[in-house]
């Protein structure tokens, strides 16, 4: 699920930025352009708090219930007796009535429920872009019309300067339809894991740049001529998902290749969108990876093998470099390696720097919450929005969803650091404990706990991971591309161009990398993209972007 979610987060940036017209987020959205009828909430205030502000405890006037969809993770299957439910009811007077949907096919069921008009009021775990298909029918609430009911949300957007990020959610009508999870900083998790004992053995430094990495791989190959020093994984749903994303970003082609690949990248110098696959930077990425393959430094199976196969090569000591994230390092690589190569050591290295410099790319939005339009007519609507704001956006709500109940599941020391209570474990922080924070109590549940401040995010990280984050946090974050919202007709056309174009670029990318097609044919490839409707695709996006710019200018004048 998570590599997909990661992908969705990035991939959908393109799709998400569909929306035109003017709309600032907090300031003007609440009073501009919304008709009074839609805004009359006098009949929907039952059980709500008269005054609800930043970091205030929400509590409904009497016990009420809201329906919600719940993405059921097999790692911590839903239990009716979770402390999360009971404590939530105690604190807020709200009982959540979940429709439990297995994680494996969550999107399918959500789509059917909305499509058939029987969706619950709250629809969590909606990745950016997934709301777009539902906009036209009006089944999903334009939440941007109601942000004035969400003081904590507005506060965080303003304080963390997330305006630009949130604007990428705008639709053609100038509104947005999903309440995103908000991160204080761009959070980079994917990079390479490397066998540090081999580095030491060969007297090498941890590579800082892509060139360093190339040299390290060459040295490893020289010492172990029979092996491919690097053999990579993560080929679902996109081949070379993590590898090409990381290297592509380092070369400066938007969100990179692999999972990050988007057909269009915003060219700041030219002030318009260009085809990512035809960018020189993209070619640079291909050349780099092709060199690794041609010099037999990178296993050609890296782009098609299963994760299991790649993990096996790494943990059995056949390969020395592999893509990783914090979880895989701790859960898979270390324990696996310990069994077959007892003195093997592995570490997560800071993302190697490429021609684009010490930058990081990403959106500070996380999957979020859609709200059914039907809920707008409920007499408890205002109470529900206040409840949502408290649980998902207030500091207390976020701490509650992640860490649980102070004294029961966690304690805080004088410095404000979180510690699990003795009998409670989470991601191996407290290995001797018999109970798990998510399995037995329902906290740190992906439906309710995400985003938040860097401090909260890192509160569950190991020291090693915190060090990694420190290096990454010091890098400059590139600006997000401007919105280019498509209207319904364009959207339909766009969808028909999108997939074939993307498929073709990915397929040819692999051919170039693996040497099935010589790089001398690069120009031929660029003109082939035209045959795949590349030009029409760009004119759709750039047209929408121009429209957005104009309406924005017009809106600012008035």
């Amino acid at each position, binding site marked *: 699920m998570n590599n997909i979610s990661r992908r969705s987060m990035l991939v959908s940036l393109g799709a998400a930025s569909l929306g035109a017209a003017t709309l600032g987020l907090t300031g003007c959205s609440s009073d501009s352009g919304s008709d009074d009828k839609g805004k009359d909430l006098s009949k929907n205030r039952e059980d709500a708090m008269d005054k609800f502000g930043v970091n205030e405890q929400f509590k409904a006037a009497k016990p009420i219930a809201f329906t919600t969809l719940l993405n059921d993770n097999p790692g911590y299957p839903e239990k009716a007796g979770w402390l999360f439910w009971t404590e939530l009811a105690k604190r807020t007077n709200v009982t959540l009535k979940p429709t439990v949907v297995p994680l494996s096919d969550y999107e399918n069921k959500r789509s059917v429920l909305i*499509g058939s008009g029987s969706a619950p009021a709250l629809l969590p775990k909606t990745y950016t872009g997934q709301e777009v*298909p539902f906009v*036209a029918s009006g*089944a999903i609430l334009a939440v941007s019309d109601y942000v004035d009911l969400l003081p904590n949300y507005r506060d965080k957007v303003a304080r963390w300067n997330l305006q630009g990020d949130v604007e990428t959610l705008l639709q053609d009508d100038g509104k947005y339809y999903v309440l995103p999870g908000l991160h204080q900083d761009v959070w980079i998790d994917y990079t390479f894991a490397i066998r540090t004992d081999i580095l030491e053995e060969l007297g090498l430094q941890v590579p800082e740049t892509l060139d360093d990495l190339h040299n390290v791989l060459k040295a490893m190959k020289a010492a172990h001529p029979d092996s491919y020093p690097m053999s990579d994984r993560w080929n679902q749903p996109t081949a070379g998902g993590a590898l090409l994303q990381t290297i592509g970003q380092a070369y400066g082609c938007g969100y990179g290749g692999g999972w990050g690949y988007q057909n269009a990248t915003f060219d700041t110098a030219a002030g318009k969108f260009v085809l990512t696959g035809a960018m020189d930077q993209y070619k640079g990425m291909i050349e780099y990876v092709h060199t690794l393959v041609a010099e037999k430094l990178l296993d050609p199976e890296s782009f*098609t093998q*299963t994760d299991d196969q790649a993990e096996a090569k790494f943990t059995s000591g056949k390969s020395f470099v592999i893509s990783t994230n914090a979880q895989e390092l701790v859960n898979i690589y270390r324990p696996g390696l310990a069994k077959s190569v007892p003195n093997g050591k592995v570490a997560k290295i800071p993302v190697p720097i490429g021609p684009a410099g010490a930058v990081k790319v990403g959106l500070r939005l996380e999957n979020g919450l859609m709200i059914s339009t039907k809920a707008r007519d409920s007499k408890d609507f205002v109470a529900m929005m206040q409840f949502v704001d408290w649980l998902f956006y207030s500091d207390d709500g976020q701490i509650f969803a992640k860490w649980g109940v102070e004294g029961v599941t966690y304690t805080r020391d004088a410095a404000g650091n979180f510690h699990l209570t003795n009998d409670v474990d989470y991601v191996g922080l407290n290995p001797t404990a018999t109970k798990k924070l998510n399995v037995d109590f329902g906290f740190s549940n992906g439906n309710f706990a995400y985003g938040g401040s860097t401090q909260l995010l890192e509160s569950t990280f190991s020291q090693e991971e915190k060090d990694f984050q420190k290096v990454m946090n010091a890098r400059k974050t590139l600006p997000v591309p401007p919105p280019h919202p498509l209207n319904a007709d364009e*959207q339909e056309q766009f969808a028909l161009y999108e997939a074939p174009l993307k498929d073709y670029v990915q397929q040819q990318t*692999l051919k170039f990398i693996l040497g099935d097609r010589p790089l001398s044919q690069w120009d031929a490839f660029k003109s082939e993209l035209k045959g795949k409707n590349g030009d029409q695709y760009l004119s759709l996006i750039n047209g929408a972007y121009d429209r957005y710019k104009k309406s924005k200018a017009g809106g600012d004048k008035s």
Partner: protein
Amino acid sequence: MSTTRTVDLPSDAPGAGGRSSARTRPKGRVGRMGRNRSQGRRTWRQSLRRDWQLYSLAVLPLTFFAVFRYLPMAGNVIAFRRFHPGGSMFGDQWVGMRYFRLFWHDPTFWHVFTNTLVIGLLTLVFCFPMPIVLALLLNEVRSRKFKKLVQSVSYLPHFLSTVIVAGVVMQFLAADGPVNQALHHFGHSPILFIQQPGWFRSIYVSSELWQTVGWGTILYLAALTSIDDNLYEAARIDGANRWKQTWHVTLPGIRPTMVTLLILNIGTFMAVGFEKILLLYNPLTYPTADVVSTYLYRMGVVSNNFSYAAAIGLFESLIGLVLIVSANRISRRTVGTSLW
């Protein structure tokens, strides 16, 4: 011998009513929809009066088809109307043939359509006859225990999920997997099977074969047991050897089963295994592996375009229907066996 009865004459062919002599039944069916109205109505009334109990048995099943099959079919109207998820399930506005034009002019669609035909055809060519061969081989086995063992084992893959089958295939064909180890043994350099478009179809078809061949024998083994032993006896007296017996007695005996399954297979041949292809293909093998269903899936993930999908779905259904009706007709004309 029952095989004489296996010829299913079209019900309105002369003589088809011959067997029903026990009940007096009007012959010379007033065929197609009241060529003679008054006579037709009377016949219907007579039929109803005589066979009402039989018709009553069809009431529940017909209700099932009406409610659970035909009623939802009305939703296909969205192939001609623009549908917004969450809006009316019958779409919001007429767009005529828009979605049909869209895919008709989509070169990728025709590419995946061709792939679908090729993979469908290969599956038919290999996965249809192999169960027959296996059933015939099993039929020659003398040891009951061995026969039972082969049967029980060969049914097993039918129960495994596609995810597992795909995982096993990937493992087998990996650069250091068993197949490449064997190749290495013969001095061949490793082949990256999974990356080469040229190998995809063979891989797909053989894994399909592995999964279905055993289970597919069930119906043939059943048919084999119904062949009259006297026929073998007669053939032996005529001096037929084992091979000739198979050719002249066994095969004709299971022919109706074969033809029925062949017709059904032809009709469903556009519906190649979506899940397995999705798990086995990658961008490098799209040229041969991408089929209509996987293409729609990739389109769908991005766009949730139900109307477009409905249009392609209708097109596929139409092809399926034409195929099965023609196959049925040809089969009725040539071998006298048919589904209806």
